[in-house]
């Protein structure tokens, strides 16, 4: 399925996704959207791992396993984050970044 697609393309895709994720993390206001941006970051790393594994080092499956674990950990992270966000929603009725500014310098 991947034959003939050069590795660079995967890496470019992953890098673009990574920075879209970082950008979203920085400018988005809604906490859930920020969480989605973080998932983009993690998934770009997954693309990297799978592409490296498939195209450069196909003899071992280390990259694939890493991806599996990253997915599982991302789910755990998302569930804890959502739990905290729900808690904020219950207290404030809003989940925008501007509303959680009680502590500043």
């Amino acid at each position, binding site marked *: 399925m991947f*034959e*003939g*697609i050069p590795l660079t*393309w995967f890496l470019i895709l992953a890098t673009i996704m990574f920075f879209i994720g970082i950008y979203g993390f920085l400018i988005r206001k809604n906490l859930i959207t920020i969480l989605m941006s973080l998932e983009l970051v993690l998934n770009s790393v997954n693309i990297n791992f799978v592409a490296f594994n498939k195209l450069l080092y196909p003899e071992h499956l280390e990259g694939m*396993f890493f991806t*599996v674990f990253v997915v599982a950990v991302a*789910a755990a992270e998302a569930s804890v984050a*959502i739990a905290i966000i729900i808690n904020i929603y219950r207290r404030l009725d809003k989940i925008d970044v501007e509303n959680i500014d009680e502590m500043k310098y």
Partner: protein
Amino acid sequence: MSAESLILFFIVGAFLVGVAVLFSSYVPPKSSNPQKFEPYECGIPTEGLTWLQFNVGYYMFSIIYLVFDVETIFLFPWAEVMKETGMRGFIEIVIFFFILGVGLLYAWKKGALKWE
């Protein structure tokens, strides 16, 4: 499939879609009335906003579902090599399930599975 053919595929695909869209926007007869812009043209009128909020209870379930759903990702590699790993692999997966089961029991005991 090589890279060139992939590019060709995208070009041909975009071309065909573009032709279809243009064709359908010029050729057929047009009529317009307010009902055409309803989400369900031949159904009952919609009520309220689409940005309605879901009950928090859904989130509770989705969190628990998310965690336990993703754990199946670890079962596939095991199922793939089940014959080779034999009893040892089986015991390991049973331990894994035991820990998950304690987690589920805990969620149950804490009332996270109840609909409020």
